[in-house]
């Protein structure tokens, strides 16, 4: 019964790219997936679960039913999804991207280290506030592994702690060290109105806040909205993550100090490339480390124009 026909009418290999949610970050990755599919001659498709982990499970199960040759997954809770991933690994070629599941039988991992990227972001904060100051962190959710690590990286870098990705500071605690004070971490569960309200309430509660850090792609634009309405643009520093248009525009204008960008396009593109090769029987593309690093980069006013132009060309927008 395990007929993995896996052949579409055209005889092309089928590859699925499963994300951990829906976000503009993933729509960039989807562009990479599409480009990869065309370039390497496979049917590549992006799937974004809406309802978290049970939805992701359902999607993967149904993909296996439908018969795909290769799957790239960004597991939401890697520690507890081993079973599911192992089933997937038996029925198709499985790799992970964005977030790894080292205990599973996945073939390899494509992505970056969120903790390190977080530290890069923390360094930007120190740059923006050379004399120290108070910082509030904004993020969509804290339960995902990548968001926990990213946030921890930011905190550790700001406070000048040594690298320790396993660390976790509870979100409600105020942390202080060598002139920097972290006021807290606010989540919004992807409700943008709530995200903006978080920023506004922070400005009300801490009128003297010196820097706001938005760690999910949509957070920095919301920070800019709130600051704009409070007439505090430029007065309160903003440090960002990801490459929302409003964020990049803010860097150009100087209202955002800088942002750390991953390379979602490359996540998608590279995942398809690797899976295309493996499914065609060429396992040599898997490195010995089972890890392909797609490093994050810091974008500041100096390099923003060039980055933005490149991004637009990849996405096919003007």
């Amino acid at each position, binding site marked *: 019964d395990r007929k993995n026909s896996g052949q579409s009418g055209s005889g092309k290999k089928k590859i699925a790219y499963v994300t951990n949610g829906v*976000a503009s970050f993933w*729509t960039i990755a989807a562009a990479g997936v599409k480009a990869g599919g065309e370039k390497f001659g496979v049917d590549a498709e992006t799937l*974004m679960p*809406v309802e978290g982990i049970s939805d992701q499970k359902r999607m993967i199960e149904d993909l296996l039913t439908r018969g795909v040759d290769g799957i790239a997954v960004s597991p939401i809770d890697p520690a507890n999804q081993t079973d599911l991933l192992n089933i997937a690994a038996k029925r198709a070629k499985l790799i992970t991207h964005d977030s790894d599941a080292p205990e599973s039988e996945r073939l390899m991992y494509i992505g970056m280290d969120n903790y390190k990227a977080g530290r890069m972001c923390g360094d930007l904060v120190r740059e923006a506030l050379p004399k120290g100051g108070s910082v509030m962190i904004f993020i969509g959710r804290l339960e995902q592994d990548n968001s926990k690590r990213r946030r921890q990286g930011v905190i550790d870098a700001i406070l000048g702690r040594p690298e320790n990705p396993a660390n976790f500071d509870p979100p409600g605690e105020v942390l202080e060290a060598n002139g920097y004070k972290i006021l807290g971490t606010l989540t919004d569960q992807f409700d943008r109105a709530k995200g903006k309200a978080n920023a506004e309430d922070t400005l009300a509660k801490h009128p003297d806040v010196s820097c706001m850090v938005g760690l999910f792609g949509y957070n920095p634009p919301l920070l800019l*909205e709130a600051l704009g309405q409070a007439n505090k643009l430029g007065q309160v520093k903003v440090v960002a993550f990801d490459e929302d248009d409003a964020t990049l525009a803010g860097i150009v204008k100087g209202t955002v100090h800088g942002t750390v960008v991953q390379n979602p396009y490359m996540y998608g593109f590279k995942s398809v490339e690797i899976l295309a090769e493996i499914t065609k029987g060429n396992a040599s593309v898997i490195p010995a480390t089972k890890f392909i690093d797609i490093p994050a980069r810091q974008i500041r006013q100096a390099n923003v124009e060039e980055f933005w132009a490149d991004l637009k060309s990849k996405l096919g927008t003007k």
Partner: protein
Amino acid sequence: MKKIFGITGLLIVVCIITALASESFLSGYNLENLVRRTALFGIISIGVAFVIVTGGIDLSIGSVVCLVGCGLPWMLKTYHLPLPVALAVVAAVSVGIGLLHGLIITKLRIQPFVVTLCGLMMYRGITRGFTRDQTFGFGSNYDGLRVLSTGNIPLPFIKGFAIPAPWITLLVVAVLAAIFLNRTIWGRYLFALGRNEEAARYSGINTDRMVILAYVISSTLAGLGGVLFVLDVNSAQPVDFGNVYELYAIAAAVLGGCSLRGGEGSIIGVIVGAALMQVLRNMIMLTTTRTNIEFAIIGAVILLGVIADELVKRYAVRRRAAKALAAGQS
């Protein structure tokens, strides 16, 4: 009026407590934010109140907010439509959705819960389809339009607080809605049919037409809310924009004295209900650092408030009865 006494009291108590616990609460900036949020949620809550008065329900509000909120910037950006055209399309779609709901509910006699639940699923799904899950916003264009949501109207003689523009919209909507509901024959018809549709029909009222009207008002105000929300936030992601707003709207309406059995409701109550929800969220943000239990606190406060209200009412009734008894015996 008596109906909203309890909830108004609760709102005042929460405000006083918050003001005592956090000095930022009464700052002009915070008040402006609160008023703006209350206005935005108040508008969609007033819409759903009309439907609730008829004994129906509208679960599609959040999805209409999503459709309109994402659709407007999408049209402007993808098709470069002139603004008035885009706004007209948005208005037509909102009205059309209400019309569709109303027609299916009255002519085909399908339960409002089912019809609008399907609406909840469809409109967000459609939005995700045409936007291809992309986020849309206005960037730094259309600032003139955005004043509708983000603008502040300074008050003479008062410094540090200006009236947020959406409040004016809310005021207009609320005054019209209150006049409509309480002073016109159509409002009277809505109340009558909400309690006893047969009685209304036997009195020669075209009940179907009135029910359709209520759904049109609901989705039109949801559409207006959607526009104002996206103008405020300046970014809309189809997957979550406006998600569960129908619950907030219904909760505000019910807190404000609307009975889901139909035939009861007051516009001022709805606004007070919407304000209570926003003040509670604000209170938690300003006074604690454990913001993740926010909803636990909101839920508990509302529940306790409603219970207290009920107990006070009962006590009053019992006292009146005891008085009457005493008077009789003496």
